[in-house]
């Protein structure tokens, strides 16, 4: 069994860990000004929304990014609606998957 790419996993850890640790291991981070802390509180919603939107709205083909419209939009919107309404992520994910299965069974892209 090949192990050639295990060092690549170590390299990826080496370039990822500092970004994960810089805040947690730097005691000066909590002496940031109020404005900076306000900014940091908004990072979570912004990054998660960007991850979701890019994942369902952008596809890369032949090295080019293109805008796509498809069934995953509906799944994600349903999940957002249910989480906002019921505050229950599990239910939201179940709905998203159910919509995707039903839509694809019906032949939607």
């Amino acid at each position, binding site marked *: 069994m*090949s192990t050639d790419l295990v060092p690549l996993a170590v390299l990826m850890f080496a370039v990822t860990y500092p970004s994960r640790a810089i805040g947690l291991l730097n005691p000066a981070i*909590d002496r940031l000004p109020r404005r900076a802390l306000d900014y*940091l*509180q908004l990072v979570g919603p912004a990054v998660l929304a*960007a991850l979701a939107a*890019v994942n369902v709205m952008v596809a890369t083909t032949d090295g080019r990014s293109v805008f796509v419209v498809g069934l995953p939009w509906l799944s994600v919107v349903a999940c957002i609606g249910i989480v906002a309404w019921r505050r229950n992520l599990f239910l939201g994910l179940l709905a998203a*998957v159910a919509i995707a299965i039903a839509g694809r069974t019906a032949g939607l892209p």
Partner: protein
Amino acid sequence: MVDGLGIMVSAAGFGFVYGLTARTSGHFSPLEAGAMSLIAFGGAAQFAAIGYVASGLAWPAIGLLTLLLNARHVLYSAALAPWFRGRSLVERALAAHLLTDESFALAIAHFKRLGRFDAIGYWYPAIVTTLIPWNIATFAGVMLGDAIIEPSRFGIDVIFPAAMAGLGVGLVTGRRELVAAIAGAAIGVAASLAISPTIGIIAGGMLGPLVGLLTPSGSDAPTDPGNAKLP
């Protein structure tokens, strides 16, 4: 706890698809795919790495792109830091390796609800709902993936974006957070189309909060963990 169950499903589904994709790419052995999940432990970056390896990209370039894609963790780490004030160096160092989109979202929401740090509130989402299912599902995807011809028919491909969006909703406690999320998504998509998805996610994550800061706060929730009750 219920949100944690949702994340467990998400991590398992996404990990399974990762294992499946790594296997079917023809470049990753089960051991290599498993090492990625355990050592690198970065879902989106691992997915991207499959494409990088398949396209023959040099390792330094893969390292640079991984660094960029995971740069958002700087922001997560800094946002969590005030809540970890007073915790031991070893605990913070270990917590850093397990910091993911999922563990961050669940933990920060939990800390905000409590108004203080809670160890289980971090380690439970980091280990039980993310690390363990992610690695088990990777293994399952690599070993059993050949039997599933079209994962999208089972809706597995929508689990990750739906989970990210749902987690984002959980963090929206006021007008500023909502504006930051909408701006982050819009900027992310625009920058992805103009440059690349990697840059798009970072741009959305960095510029979205700036747009949010321009919005008057419409929430009673504490926006500054430094003002909350901390250990």
